[in-house]
């Protein structure tokens, strides 16, 4: 089996989000970016599949920021190849529909028969990548998956439904999977190993052209503050009286 793991950078909300002057996008130069955490789950799931079934694993990311460290880290964790997609217009970020449009050809060239990517990301404004990819490739598809096993010419995917229900689905290859969670937490890549990989291996690059975007953002703004918590001060009597008052007011 040849597995492609598609990763992307997303805004890191540890730092403040900065809007552009026209209020229609994040100011990409002023925000911090990190690997989408669900993509890291997808990578871990793929590594587990590789270990259990001997797959060849290629990690792919578009250069919508500095993706080198993310790709080298994936190699340090055990990926076989890392492919960086480069081209004009990527640095400003791309929508998932555009990313899927780019990836259809790339995945065909890589020769993958399974694509794993994160179930979602914090910047999914136009739908989720796995869904766009499955539609573009015309492959079998499951998303919100929390466990995958290889079974000959197919994959068994544990898919979560609402209300705590799960089902094991058999997907004939080729298939696209949106990974919610790997059975194991993403493994740690020791820095010495990442740095060794940076010295001894290089990233493959491929020039791509992004298709036109599918949505237009009219405005972005931070959520407005509504309400807040009341810290009840005073001695025990005063606190108890205030709590009783609040409960009475709320009719609880």
């Amino acid at each position, binding site marked *: 089996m040849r597995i492609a793991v598609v990763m992307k950078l997303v805004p890191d909300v*540890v*730092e*403040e989000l900065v809007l552009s002057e026209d209020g229609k996008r994040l100011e990409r130069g002023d925000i*911090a970016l*990190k690997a989408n955490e669900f993509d890291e789950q997808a990578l871990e799931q793929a590594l587990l599949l590789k270990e259990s079934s001997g797959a060849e694993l290629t990690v792919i990311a578009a250069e919508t920021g500095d993706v080198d460290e993310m790709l080298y880290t994936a190699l340090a964790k055990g990926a076989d190849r890392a492919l960086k997609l480069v081209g004009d217009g990527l640095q400003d970020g791309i929508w998932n529909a555009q990313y899927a449009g780019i990836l259809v050809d790339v995945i065909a060239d890589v020769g993958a028969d399974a694509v794993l990517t994160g179930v979602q990301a914090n910047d999914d404004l136009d739908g989720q990548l796995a869904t766009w990819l499955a539609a573009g490739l015309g492959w079998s598809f499951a998303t919100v998956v929390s466990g995958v096993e290889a079974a000959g010419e197919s994959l068994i995917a544990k898919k979560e439904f609402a209300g705590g229900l799960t089902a094991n689905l058999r997907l004939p290859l080729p298939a696209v999977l949106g990974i919610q969670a790997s059975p194991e*937490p993403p*493994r*740690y890549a*020791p*820095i*010495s*190993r*990442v*740095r060794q990989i940076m010295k001894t291996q290089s990233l493959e690059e491929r020039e791509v052209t992004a298709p036109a975007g599918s949505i237009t953002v009219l405005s972005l703004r931070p959520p407005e503050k509504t309400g807040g918590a009341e810290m009840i001060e005073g001695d025990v009597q005063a606190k108890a009286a205030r709590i009783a008052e609040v409960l009475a007011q709320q009719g609880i």
Partner: protein
Amino acid sequence: MEEKAKAVELPSVTIDGVTLPAQWNRMFEPRVINQYDISVLEETTAIPGAESLGYCYQCGKCTGVCPIDTVGDYSPRKIFRRTQIGIPLIDSPDLWLCTTCRNCLRVCPKEVNMIDIMPAVREQAVLEGKAPQELLTAFENTARYGNPLGEAPRKRADWTKSAGVEVRIMSQLKAPVDVLWFVECYPSYHPRGKDASVALARILDKLGIDFGILGVEEKCAGDSQRMAGERGLFEMLAEQNISTLSKYEFETLMVTDPHAYNAFLHEYPKLGGSYKTVHYTQLLAPLIDQMGLSQEVPARVTFHDPCYLGRHNGEYEAPRRLLEAIPGIDLVEMGRCKERSYCCGGGGGGMWLDSFTRDHTSARLSEMRVREAIEYGAEILAVACPYEVSRFEDAVKSTGNAGRLKVMDISELLALSMGLIPMEALA
């Protein structure tokens, strides 16, 4: 395994003119220890840095001073013994409980050096994916954000906004300073760490010291990550800090954190970064006469020696000179003080292993220490390491002693006496 040596049995034997009867002669048989399969011990001592584990001759002196043994079944002697009988240290919880406090090495006649053994074996464990998850989270945070707390790198100097005095950032200052203050992570981000940083900034300002900080350019010094087994991460951080420091001119590098002090004294020089490094207590102690310590701080105070300032680097006096200079303070020593000091539990990665350690010990070291301070009648536990304020304050609460013991950094006590922070801080 070697075939068991066969004893030669004689009624008596004369050696160098001394006649030994048979029961004495038995002592010349190979000791039974040699018939063990010691391959697990040999695998461990083959790890570069871990050789000295094999020197242990089981005298047990370490067990008497090991802080972890007071809350668990633990000491270097026991670690050696378990490894000797075939329990691999690399797979054992024992590997992650040592706080690298150095008390065992102080008494070990064979120089079994846990300060080298622990990081060496832990590094191997990290490479093999065997480290506790919570520790790895701290490593990942440090690698991504330059601090183990996972806080925003761009907010590293935000504490200066509440300092009330000018704290200059080197990248904006573009001029040499006498003192470059390496603030470190907990003093930059932790609420109580920031209180101590504000106090220290005001003291430096009042003394007219020409100082600056690196601000967002500063990364974690990385020494505890090194001791916890992530040497690669330490080297990356050290290279980044050395590169940043090389851009600026300064006479003295002052650190708040004894762990950073240790790194700058012993590890950064190996990577090309040599600085005249002092702990802030060492910078301030000679300046006591200029400090204007006029306000009384009426309290019984005891001092917890940080392992990495005291035992690791021999500084016991500077913090005490400062505390003794504060009017009103009645300084009492705990039984375990100076080179025999207990440990707060935060060193060697312990800061990021709280859940793991809880599962394998009966109490936190910080809780034991807080109880000891209270036994000595202390009202204030004075500290000089940024790990300790948060650890001991939590321990005061978790041992049910809230309101009985206050934990304060020495810089806060000095600032109180200098009238630079309000006396309400004592309340």
